[in-house]
């Protein structure tokens, strides 16, 4: 029974270490898969799943906006952009939709707990020659507030973070 204060002290010491020495967290970060200064985003494919056109376009546009804003790349190229060929260390992001559930904004607003919209997307990063560098399944969802299309924004944020963590070096501090 008298060990509770010791446990509490140990907890706060560990918490303090984690806060005061953020460099420790750098060591825990995974190594870069590959270094890239440019990324090209291809149009979202949805061959297996019937995805409404507005979701497909919204996924693509949100992905580009988030990569420009948070990806840390010098250049973000769109599908078909001729200027992408000039980028030497360019990676290409292929995305295909594997699952889609269109919820209801009205159900979310009325009940709070139902009406979730969810999109599952398989992301594949390749180099410019097509060699696969990284594959990951990501999910975008809107559970409580916002229109159905907000699920694409949620996915785009996760994809931009994935790209940043694996292909853009963290600035040394």
């Amino acid at each position, binding site marked *: 029974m008298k060990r509770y204060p010791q446990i509490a002290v140990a907890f706060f010491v560990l918490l303090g270490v984690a806060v005061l020495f953020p460099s420790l967290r750098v060591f825990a970060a995974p190594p870069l898969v590959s270094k890239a200064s440019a990324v090209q985003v291809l149009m979202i494919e949805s061959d297996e799943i019937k995805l409404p056109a507005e979701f497909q376009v919204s996924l693509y546009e949100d992905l580009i906006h988030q990569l420009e804003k948070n990806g840390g790349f010098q250049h973000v190229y*769109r599908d*078909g952009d001729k200027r992408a060929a000039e980028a030497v260390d360019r990676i290409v992001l292929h995305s295909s939709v594997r699952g889609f559930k269109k919820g209801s904004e009205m159900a979310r607003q*009325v009940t709070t707990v139902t009406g979730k919209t969810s999109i599952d997307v398989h992301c594949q990063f390749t180099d410019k020659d097509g060699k696969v560098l990284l594959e990951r399944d990501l999910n975008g969802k809107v559970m409580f507030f916002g229109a159905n299309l907000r699920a694409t924004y949620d996915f785009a944020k996760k994809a931009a973070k994935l790209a940043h963590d694996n292909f853009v070096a963290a600035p040394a501090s």
Partner: protein
Amino acid sequence: MKSSWKPWRVLIGILLLQMGPLALPNLAQQATSDAIRVVQLTGLVGVKNKTKGTVKVENGTLQFVHAKAKTELAASTVEDVITGNDSQRAVHGFVGTLTMFAPYGSGRFLSLFRTKLDTLTLQYRDAEGALHGAIFTMPVGQADALKKLLIAQGAHTTLPTPDTAAAADAKPDTTKEHQP
């Protein structure tokens, strides 16, 4: 003998002859459309997301006018036009957000009252060949008309409706090269 020649009959005949071609269903003649109030959700270059404005198809371009600025998009650069539908709260925007905090669940009750919307999704390429996507929402019943106008002026679609297919057939095929 009384003459049956009456000037007003001739006048009506001439008028009917002049008006005849206008009565034919020629979509290519529809060079302009009335401006439609829309919300641009995303995708137009240089325009913020969720910008309100009006859209008009004129002289082979889609014109989005918002806050004294005009953005034009050539219909021939549009690779795909697709319509859809959605709905939104009848009380939306900032006031709609405030109603969510109304007492006794009245905000939730207001969520039951909704207005239907049409969506128009475009995919187009810029001068560098880069693919862009744009999404507009508009009052119900407007998107199909806008789609027909765009197709009549050179836009393409992967999901033609019977009317748009007829318009595409009537339109001269500009992609084919004419051999001398």
